[in-house]
Every structure is written in structure tokens, then in C-alpha cells.
């Protein structure tokens, strides 16, 4: 334990995700030793981002105003929604330019071990959009891991009564990989998702 400002800095840094006490200490000392404008630039970038970046009131993605770029774009189909966990996932899918519709960012995934339940996600907002915009298809693009899968199951169950078509990104063999390295779970999912040729 240190005293005063350095300990305050360590405490603040160690609250960031993925930063343990040791990393926080290392970062704090790095910043303290760094040239003054380097630390200042970082501080200013944080403040500016905090002031200027908002979350889109429609989809929950990052935005520079009230609505994000995609939600402002009238050429984007509002009846197809691609549901993702985080803004970075929407950015990844957007780079591939495969979705003509819009996004809905949940803000995480159900993770009982981290105390994250459905009430912590933007699920009600999704149901409202589906009803309001006459959505015809919801594509669930949560991560293909345990938490993402549970989240997809939960959202799909909630959407069921609305009658909207709910699809899930296929899981299977990675493009560019070798079949012999595939595990049983991946293989069986690939088999379930097979298609006519």
C-alpha cells in the first residue's frame, strides 16, 4: 500500500475490467514516470470520450449524438435486427457488411457467476423495437460460448410469443481450419447446421 495520489490512481485503475492489483500498480508507476503531456493526453482522451460519446437510444451502440450512424441511416432495413452483446461485436459484423438491417446491443451476456442476469441487459428495449417496428427477423449474434448461448436461449424464449422469426448465427467448423482438429461439440453443431448442396 502506498499513500495519497499514487494509491488513489492504483485504486482507480484496478477497477477497470481485466486489470488486477499488480497491473494497476505497474500502470500507475508508468504514468507517474511518463512525460507530463503523455499522461495529460490520456486524461483528456478519457474526458472527451466521456463527454462526446453516447449510447444510441435505439440500439445501444456507441453514438456521437442521440442516434448512432446506422440508426440514422434510413436505407437500413428496420425490420431485420441483429442482436449482439457489445458495440465491438456490431462493429465486427458491420465490417463484414453482411447485415442490411440494424443492430441491437444487449450490453453483455447472462453470466450467473458474475451476477449478471437478464434484468441487466437491454432486453425490454429489444421487445419494444420488435413490436413498434414490425420486425420480421431477429438474428441472434451473441458469442458462441456458454454465456452467449444462454443469452440467445433466453432472448429467443422471450420473442417466441411475438411470432417473429428468430435465427442464430451458425456454429461450426472454422473456415481455414482442418477437420481433424475439430472437437465433438463443434462437430455436432456443424452437423446440425448442415445444408443441402
Amino acid at each position, binding site marked *: 500500500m502506498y499513500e495519497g495520489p499514487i494509491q488513489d490512481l492504483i485504486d482507480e485503475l484496478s477497477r477497470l475490467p481485466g486489470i488486477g492489483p499488480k497491473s494497476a500498480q505497474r500502470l500507475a508507476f508508468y504514468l507517474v514516470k511518463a512525460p507530463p503531456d503523455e499522461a495529460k493526453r490520456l486524461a483528456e482522451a478519457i474526458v472527451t470520450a466521456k463527454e462526446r460519446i453516447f449510447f444510441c437510444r435505439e440500439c445501444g451502440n456507441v453514438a456521437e449524438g442521440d442516434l448512432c450512424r446506422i440508426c440514422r441511416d434510413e436505407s437500413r432495413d428496420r425490420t431485420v435486427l441483429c442482436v449482439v452483446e457489445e458495440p465491438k461485436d456490431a462493429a465486427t459484423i458491420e465490417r463484414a457488411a453482411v447485415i442490411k438491417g440494424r443492430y441491437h446491443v444487449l450490453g453483455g451476456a447472462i453470466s450467473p*457467476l458474475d451476477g449478471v442476469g*437478464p434484468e441487466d441487459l437491454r432486453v425490454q428495449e429489444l421487445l419494444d423495437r420488435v413490436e413498434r417496428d414490425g420486425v420480421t427477423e431477429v438474428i441472434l449474434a451473441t458469442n458462441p460460448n456458454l454465456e452467449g448461448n444462454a443469452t440467445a436461449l433466453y432472448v429467443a424464449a422471450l420473442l417466441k410469443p411475438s411470432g417473429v422469426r428468430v435465427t442464430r448465427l451458425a456454429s461450426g467448423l472454422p473456415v481455414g481450419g482442418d477437420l481433424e482438429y475439430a472437437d465433438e*461439440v463443434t462437430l455436432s453443431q456443424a452437423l446440425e447446421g448442415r445444408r443441402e448442396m
Partner: protein
Amino acid sequence: MPLYKEQGVVLRSVKLGEADKIVTVMTQGAGKVRAVAKGIRKTTSRFGARLEPFTHVSLMLYRGRGQLDTVTQADIIASHRNLRDHLGLFAAGETMLEETDNVAQEHERNVRLFLLLLSGLRALDARPADPVSVAESFLLKLLSLSGFHPSLTACAVCGAPDPTLFASGQGGAVCANCAEHDAGSASCEALRMLAELAEADLMGAGDIHPDEQVRREGRALLYGFAEYHLERRIKSLPLLSGSLAP
């Protein structure tokens, strides 16, 4: 022996850096082990789904100098796949993983705990009618295994039959003569239900159908007792009994 072979159940995995994860595994012979799986988050990782929580795996590990080992190879023994595909089973399984993680010690062999977890996950994978009861039966067994067996059918202090009060700090159900001031009331139905869950085989625990009100009462007693003795909040419990069923 820097390189060693173990089998175990993956309890959790946490992101590390850009593409790695730290997996926590309850092993058969080496207790709880935390190990780095390099590159696992890349879609072309050779680990694939092999190190997802709930999976019973056979592992090759490299013993690190610090607290973390490194996984060099993983093969699935049982994937317990139904737990991925049904929310109720998932929630019940998550509580088992969290509780095991809470009581297991790193690098301290605990074969009974490993086997208990494995039977718990197997029971869930068989798709029981009532996964919550299986999870609660599991919790009672885990408490007993950890030395916190709750007294349910007799006073924890004097052994008198038909106790009517409950005090976690006194070891469970207590009679009016022995109860300290913080004891709360407990119906004999709720205590009997918990005793039944404690006795039940994990495979059969999903067939006990307690009355809803009795169940709520018993559940509150059990969760309070568990958190008191394990000295921590069990984060996955609130989701077990409620909000995951839309």
C-alpha cells in the same frame, strides 16, 4: 514433473489479454487448477469448445513457476451438452460450478468433491424434471463434504427431535430450549423437504416435487445457511430460482 496429465471439469474461463483465457479446472488428482489456454479465443484455435465450462476434459498441463499452469492439450470426455441447450439446466449447473469453485483449494487434491461435481453435472445432463431440486440437493451434499452438514431432523445442539427453529450459526435446526436469540422459525415441512433433498440420490432429486410455499421457505433456510458457512454470497443463486425462466 513440469508436464502432467489430469482429468477435470472446467469451472470457469476468464479472458486474458487479446486472445487467451485463464481456465479454472476442478481436477481429479490436483484439486483446483488455474491454467492459461493460449489463443483459445481465436476462431481457429485448436482448443475449440474443449475448455468451455461444464466440460469433463482430459488435459495435458505444464506446471508454471507462478500460480498459473498452461494447458498444452485438451480432449473432451463428456461435454454435458444439454446444459448448454436448456436455460434451467444451465442455471442449475452454474450454481454447482460456483459452489465448487468456492470450496475447492488450489493444488489440493479433493477426489470426493470432483466426483460430486461430476455426478451433479451428469444428473443435470439427464434432463431432470426439476433441475433446481438437483442443484439444491447438490448444495446440501457439498456443505456436508465441507464439514457444514446442517442439522435438519433433530436439534443441532441437544439432539431433541422435531425442532421448530433454525439458526445457521448454531448448525441448523434447533429446539426452543437451545435456540439463541437470532434463531428464526422453521416449519417441519420445510425441514423435512431439505432432509429429503440431502438424502436423495442426485439422479433422483429432480423427482421430488415439494409444495411451492414449503419450497420457498426451505430454499431461504438453505441459501442462508450456505452463505453463512461458505462465508460468501453465492452470486448464481438468485438466477437459479427465478428470473431465468421467461
